[in-house]
């Protein structure tokens, strides 16, 4: 039932928005309407979950299903009349598919690249399906966010002294709400780690669409879009519950729709008035992408500031250079941006910052806010959570990214560390960017200059631009630039395409992570779905640090069932990466149990809180206060058990050298 509702609601949402955008085909290309459908699909998910989780506090599968079904049915009913029936929709999809497949099959190297892409995608989806979510941040906070919302049916603060819980409280959760969407109907986390793979496909589509807007020949547009995919960190992170791929792709989607503004024609004065559809719809989609991005990561505001800054500069230049024939004044244009870009962006992404402002007095509570060493707002941390490696500290601003791009590492990892962009970036895209900027400046290709400057500026001001996973969008600029290079050298395209194909093949066979080794793949294929667990995988990224935890994780996997509540009694008050306390394994694999923190200064109060929270099991550290209380209680019980009529309050279910799990029996 869960699978049927998950599939049907997704189809309904996507179909309704596709039909809605079909009516805008005069201003949006087929690819843009596919991307737009994805943006509106995500927006609806985030908006309905926020409505149910924040306002109504009823974020459960049935209300979520009904609300979305009602919204989508309404959109479908309204938009259907303008489509001219099912035939038009079907014919368009069929014609576009055969046109694109015709282009791909005519070009041998493009076909080879496309086959490589399909194989990699297939392998990625297979691994995502086969293995549970194992990545560090997923276990630390992305999945616990999902677990906490599902158990309470509300998006709310959870107050504990834990550092990571405070981080969870202040984290913008738009993408986590998409993770939740991929768990709540299915009642398991089987596909949740593939959530970012959808963004990867959207990213490839957006590069293609941008390349077409730059008037790059279509076969090269497809070629460079496929090359974007062969970025190791993009491939590896597509099967994890991180949010970096989503953030970078949302930026590319926003830029793609901003490029609908025909800057080149306007600057040459060849412009007539634009209708709402021509200007408003692309801007609205761009604003929604930017809003989703704003609410996805604490660095979101930085992206918005840069986008707005570049738009403002572009508008000023555009109006100064326009050679007569201007229809709108600068003020008019800025008003349009405020209405169709800033407002939707703020509405879909601003909530998390307003919330932080109200609760903590700092909208970006993630870290301290200082300007020119003047401390303005206090944050959770004074600096980034992850420390800078020594080698990076010894380098300067310019040499840091180059060191990372050389990939002096033994293997790739989903969180990139000191690698992640692969050889296509370093060998083909870097010289491509230099060439493309010179070419665009010489030939007044303003659209490229606008999009390129935006992405480049964003990269330059990003405080951690040497961490490749934070700046995946810059590979998008590289792909577009290489598209321009192919277009310019079209007579010698085969040399360039052959080099690109070789490097793509090299990337495909080397993008292996030590977290997923072949013997584990074989083992997991032979296991029933319910036994493909984290404790069986023992992924190398966390294995050394959680060997003491495996015992109680296994016990939870096997024994905690729907409706059980497990209380934990200890927290990490700082960020200790040498001994992390991962929250996610405290939930059962279906996310149908509850996890609460219960701590008190005195025993009686603690018992009261255990009862009030409906606790069934308690996780304790040996020799902790709770351990001593329980031991005392158990000694008392056994010394008086001869009297009869007494019930044991605590029953030890699991015990190792560090932890115990105790069943709490309400007397």
């Amino acid at each position, binding site marked *: 039932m869960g699978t049927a509702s998950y599939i049907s609601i997704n189809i309904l949402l996507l179909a309704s928005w596709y039909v809605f955008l079909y009516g805008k085909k005069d201003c949006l290309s087929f690819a843009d309407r596919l991307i737009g459908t994805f943006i509106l699909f995500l927006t609806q998910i985030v908006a309905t979950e926020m409505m149910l989780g924040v306002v109504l506090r009823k974020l459960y599968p049935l209300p979520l299903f009904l609300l979305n079904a009602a919204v989508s049915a309404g959109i479908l009913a309204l938009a259907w009349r303008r489509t001219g029936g099912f035939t038009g929709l079907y014919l368009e999809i069929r014609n576009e598919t055969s046109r694109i497949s015709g282009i791909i099959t005519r070009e041998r190297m493009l076909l080879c690249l496309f086959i490589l892409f399909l194989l990699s995608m297939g392998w990625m989806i297979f691994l995502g399906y086969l293995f549970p979510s194992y990545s560090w941040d997923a276990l630390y906070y992305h999945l616990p966010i999902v677990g906490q919302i599902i158990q309470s049916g509300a998006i709310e603060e959870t107050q504990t002294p834990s550092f990571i819980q405070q981080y969870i409280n202040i984290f913008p959760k738009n993408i986590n709400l998409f993770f939740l969407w991929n768990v709540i109907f299915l009642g398991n986390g089987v596909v949740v780690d593939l959530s970012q793979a959808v963004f990867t496909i959207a990213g490839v589509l957006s590069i293609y669409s941008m390349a077409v807007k730059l008037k790059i020949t279509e076969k090269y547009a497809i070629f460079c879009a496929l090359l974007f995919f062969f970025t190791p960190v993009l491939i590896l992170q597509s099967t994890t519950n991180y949010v970096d791929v989503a953030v970078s792709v949302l930026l590319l989607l926003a830029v793609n729709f901003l490029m609908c503004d025909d800057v080149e024609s306007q600057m040459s004065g060849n412009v007539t008035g634009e209708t709402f559809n021509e200007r408003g719809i692309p801007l609205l989609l761009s604003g929604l992408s930017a809003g989703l991005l704003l609410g996805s990561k604490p660095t979101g505001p930085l992206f918005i500031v840069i986008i707005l800054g570049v738009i403002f500069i572009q508008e000023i230049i555009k109006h100064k250079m326009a050679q007569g024939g201007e229809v709108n004044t600068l003020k008019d244009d800025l008003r349009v941006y405020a209405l169709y870009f800033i407002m939707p962006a703020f509405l879909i992404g601003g909530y998390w910052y307003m919330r932080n402002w109200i609760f903590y007095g700092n909208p970006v509570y993630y870290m301290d806010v200082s300007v020119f060493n003047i401390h303005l707002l206090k944050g959770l941390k004074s600096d980034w959570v992850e420390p800078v490696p020594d080698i990076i500290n010894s380098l300067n601003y310019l040499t840091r990214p180059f060191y990372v791009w050389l990939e002096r590492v*033994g293997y790739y990892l989903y969180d990139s560390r000191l690698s992640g962009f692969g050889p296509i970036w370093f*060998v083909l895209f*870097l*010289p491509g960017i230099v060439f493309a900027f010179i070419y665009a400046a010489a030939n007044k290709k303003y659209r490229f200059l606008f999009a390129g400057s935006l992405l480049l500026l964003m990269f330059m001001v990003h405080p951690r631009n040497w961490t490749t996973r934070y700046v995946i969008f810059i590979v998008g600029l590289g792909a577009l630039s290489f598209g321009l290079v192919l277009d310019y050298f079209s007579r010698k395209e085969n040399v360039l395409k052959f*080099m690109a194909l070789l490097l793509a093949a090299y990337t495909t*066979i080397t993008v*292996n992570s030590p977290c997923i080794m072949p013997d584990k793949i074989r083992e997991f294929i032979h*296991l029933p779905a319910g036994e493909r667990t984290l404790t069986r995988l023992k992924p190398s990224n966390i294995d050394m640090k959680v060997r003491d935890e495996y015992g109680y994780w296994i016990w939870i996997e096997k024994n905690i069932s729907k409706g059980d509540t497990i209380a934990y009694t200890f927290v990490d008050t700082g960020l200790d990466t040498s001994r992390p306390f991962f929250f996610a394994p405290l939930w059962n694999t279906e996310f149908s149990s509850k996890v609460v923190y219960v701590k008190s200064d005195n025993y009686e109060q603690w018992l009261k809180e255990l009862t009030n929270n409906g606790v069934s099991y308690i996780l304790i550290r040996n020799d902790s206060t709770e351990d001593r209380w329980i031991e005392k209680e158990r000694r008392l019980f056994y010394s008086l058990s001869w009297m009869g009529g007494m019930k044991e309050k605590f029953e030890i279910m699991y015990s190792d050298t560090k932890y115990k799990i105790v069943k709490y029996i309400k007397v």
Partner: protein
Amino acid sequence: MNTLNRENIFFAIFVAAVIVLAAIYFSVPERMDFLDFNIRWWKELLLALKSFSYMRIEI
């Protein structure tokens, strides 16, 4: 003719840059460790495929 010559020169410069960057990228000392890891990974995959039992696949 001039345009064609200019294009040829630009192309030569671009390809030269690509070759130099490829040489730099693939010649870093750590590349051997990287390839070693991947060769081990693929050998392990081949071994896994040899001992693979189609009869015991679980969906």
